[in-house]
């Protein structure tokens, strides 16, 4: 009984970390621009897919990972430059549609260039499952957890201690004021997309050895990342992590104890509940709208 519970808990925390990374990505872009990037899921998919393609082409795994992350970062920057900036003054609906459009383009290109089949990455340190507290855990899951912790720590240092990071935070509080004190908000926005892309890509690469990837893996991952961000409170770092882990664990418990078929529905039921009863999320800031 307990062993079962631990097993579900492990898989919940593992996938929850990926949701947390995605939620952080959403939050960073939202903070810098108010835009919800529906293409975040494709960043995750692209990270995994690029790594797969590069290793298949012969590159050693560590190099493939670095190049893959770099590639996706560039995609993120291009997305900002080509699709977001030209539509800077458009209304929310238009921006949502644009990012959805971009996600379709990315997904379609991957489908055409790399096919529709499911691809896998070799696990970073082998497939031999470890036995812990009566349950089995893959070494890859430990990689996921460990890397996420490192990234979160790095982000905390970046936003709290570096000048650029603090500039990003300032922009999220009040864009006009930030511009007035000389912060280059346009460069901040560009960096936000690049950073989000990196977060997504890393998440994708980490999880691919466990869950495989395919051209349409990004849809669900992105949507669930958004759910995690909203549950935790859009724009809040702590909220993103809590939201991600909460979602991952709830999903795993539902799959194990209720019905594995409805696992995917958990995220969307959760978001409806949150949006109906607690739209600000757990840690979200109070929002007032100017009329």
């Amino acid at each position, binding site marked *: 009984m307990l062993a079962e519970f631990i097993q579900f808990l492990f898989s919940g925390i593992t996938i929850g970390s990926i949701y947390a990374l995605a939620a952080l990505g959403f939050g960073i872009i939202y903070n810098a621009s108010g835009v919800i990037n529906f293409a975040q899921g494709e960043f995750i998919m692209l990270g995994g897919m690029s790594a797969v393609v590069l290793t298949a082409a012969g590159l050693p795994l560590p190099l493939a990972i670095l190049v893959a992350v770099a590639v996706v970062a560039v995609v993120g920057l291009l997305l900002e430059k080509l699709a977001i900036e030209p539509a800077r003054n458009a209304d929310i609906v238009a921006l949502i549609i644009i990012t959805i459009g971009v996600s379709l383009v990315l997904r379609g290109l991957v489908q055409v260039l790399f096919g529709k089949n*499911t691809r896998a990455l070799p696990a970073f340190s082998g497939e031999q*499952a470890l036995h812990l507290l009566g349950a089995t855990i893959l070494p890859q899951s430990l990689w996921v957890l460990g890397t996420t912790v490192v990234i979160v720590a790095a982000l905390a240092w970046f936003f709290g201690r570096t000048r650029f990071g603090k500039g990003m935070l300032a922009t999220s509080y009040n864009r006009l004021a930030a511009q007035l004190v000389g912060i280059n908000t346009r460069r901040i926005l560009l960096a936000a997309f690049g950073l989000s892309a990196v977060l997504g890509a890393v998440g994708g690469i980490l999880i691919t050895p466990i*869950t495989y990837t395919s051209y349409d893996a990004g849809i669900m991952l992105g949507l669930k990342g958004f759910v995690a961000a909203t549950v935790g409170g859009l724009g809040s770092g702590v909220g993103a992590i809590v939201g991600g882990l909460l979602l991952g664990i709830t999903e795993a418990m539902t799959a*194990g104890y209720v019905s*594995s078929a409805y696992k995917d529905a958990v995220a969307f039921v959760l978001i409806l509940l949150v949006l109906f009863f607690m739209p600000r999320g757990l840690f979200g800031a109070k929002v007032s709208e100017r009329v």
Partner: protein
Amino acid sequence: MRSKALGRLIGASLIGFATALTALTAWAAEPIRIGSVLSVTGPAAFLGEPELKTLQLYIERINAQGGVIGRKLELVHYDDGSVAGKANAFTKRLIESDKVDLIVGGTTTGSTMAMVPLVEAARIPFISLAGAVVVVEPVKKWVFKTPHTDRMAAEKVFEDMKKRGITKVALLSETSGFGQSGRKETLASAPKYGIEIVADETYGPKDTDVTAQLTNIRNTPGVQALFVFGFGQGPAIVTKNYGQLGMKLPMYQSHGVASEEYIKLSGPAANGVRLPAAAVVVADKLPQEDPQREVVVAYKKAYEERYKEPISTFGGHAYDGLMIAVDAIKRAGSTDKEKVRAAIESTRNYMGTGGLVNMSPKDHMGLDLTAFRMLEIRNGDWVLVD
């Protein structure tokens, strides 16, 4: 005056004769259009791809030898991407726009069942490459199939389990048409072999993680073996997760995985897995006196020479479908749809990669259990364990 009129008459007749001759030759040269909707991409890709390659290879060969009833064969094919709805749309196109003479295809049960209503309404012969028994039971006038049924697979597996003294079995079936039909047949046949299904879990064809279902199965009291009913990518992921969880129960699969691709995707966890499959997969290992040996070895040689990759039963199903169709056209002497249909229905003693085929108005598949062999995967290769 008269000679002019005569001249005109002769001229007109010559033109008329030439036109008629041209028309006749054009008609004679009119190719026989074979339509096909296959799942070349998507979760059923490792079924559909060899099917397409087989059709292309053998149509080429037949044409090189003069075609059928003096006409060349032409293949018109579409990829439904393992999506049943698309199969439906493409079939409409094949029938109405491409005007094919018959259809060989429908890789999956889902795609096939989506094509059936159109085929029946248009009254065009259809040889399906799908596994479930629902395709031919109840018998539909225009629909035939070449692979063994899921009912046969369940019975073959239970036969083997009984020999090993297994009585409590966990079932993990796919929510696809094939998986659901397989589940139904499994639950119905189990009591006949004294077997109890102690766990009944499902997974979706595009799922990438079934550890929750496997964990529940592992914790079911008294479970002795696992039977997985699905095809293509799904069972490979099940097998992989199974290895990752360190499970040791004997695992049986259905004939929906009888391809080297399954072994490749599953990795070392596939060793020890048993499944019923058509003999073509172990062509070289068949004893010399085996009546199927000649056909399957010839197919294996031709396919592997051309494509440099190992054969699978799925390509074999397509081979049988094409050959039965061609033979029927020869016997019917034309592409008249009703005549071809009747000819297919009266196929007798056709030895294919799936076994000996004897069709009848009540049996639109024609295979019996002897053609199904029990295989085990050892060291990444197939071994006969009959």
